[in-house]
């Protein structure tokens, strides 16, 4: 009886019906999954594109800041941008190498000539422009052409002098306070000569 039932199942029309059922189910699953898979893939592409846009925007910001302050890279905003190079251009070894070379030349102890520093700065800007795809439109001379009028130079000099005067005033204010806090450390004036007077 069992054998007869099994043989009954193997009839062609039943097998065909079963396979047709499987095909229908598969089609239904595919129809359900396809838009979801498409949406997920689109989201992945969108996210990657947004990340790429973000990275490029950060790189452009850093490049733009250094470019506009290249006449005097000791300005605060330019210093911030320089210190972001390793992060913003983490995937650009040429840029990071050029920054390392410029950084070495900024060490006053090495006494690197000014024209060498300028050349390394231009090299850094050129490497950043190449990484951003701007190098075809920018020449090395473009990085050396800087508009830095006397009015701006004077403004920077005034800020520097004001900063020095403020530091001097604050240092003078803290020195008497230290002397009062530690009277036991006072040295006898008869043993230590004072400073000469200011030249007239």
């Amino acid at each position: 009886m069992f054998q007869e039932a099994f043989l009954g199942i193997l009839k062609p029309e039943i097998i065909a019906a079963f396979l047709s059922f499987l095909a229908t189910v598969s089609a239904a699953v595919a129809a359900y999954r396809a838009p979801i898979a498409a949406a997920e893939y689109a989201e992945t592409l969108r996210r990657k594109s947004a990340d790429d846009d973000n990275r490029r925007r950060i790189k452009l910001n850093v490049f733009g800041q250094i470019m506009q302050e290249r006449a005097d890279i000791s300005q605060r905003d330019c210093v911030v941008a320089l210190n972001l190079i390793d992060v913003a251009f983490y995937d650009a070894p040429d840029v990071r190498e050029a920054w390392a070379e410029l950084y070495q030349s900024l060490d006053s102890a090495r006494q690197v000539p000014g024209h060498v520093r300028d050349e390394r700065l231009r090299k850094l800007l050129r490497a950043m422009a190449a990484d951003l795809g701007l190098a075809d439109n920018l020449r090395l001379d473009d990085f050396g052409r800087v508009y830095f009028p006397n009015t701006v130079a004077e403004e920077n000099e005034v800020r520097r002098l004001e900063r020095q005067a403020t530091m001097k005033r604050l240092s003078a204010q803290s020195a008497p306070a230290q002397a009062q806090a530690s009277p036991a450390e006072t040295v006898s004036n008869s043993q230590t000569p004072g400073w000469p007077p200011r030249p007239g």
Partner: protein
Amino acid sequence: MAVTSGFYAALITGADSEGLVMFVAHDGKITGVDPSKVLFDGTYHIDENGGLVGKVMVKAPPNGTLVQGVSTGPHGISYETSFTIPDDFEEREFVRITTPLGPVNAKFLKLREL
């Protein structure tokens, strides 16, 4: 007391500020430095009065201000100056030195004989 080879200190006052220079004078050469890494290097001879007559090249690093009130700028500054330390420098209150960037008054102290 005549000026002889040895280790010296100089308390220097310019138009803007004061500074301390440590230097060595020996065998006709004189070299020194101050806390701001301003370097002094040159030569000297002893004159007929026992005073030390010297000429040094002064090299200052960038982004600083010398005691004369002159900014060293973004590239540093170098200049040459002559000076004389008289034989009675220890009795004098100070010695005036005229540099290309302005005058300074210096009190010299001898620290150790060489």
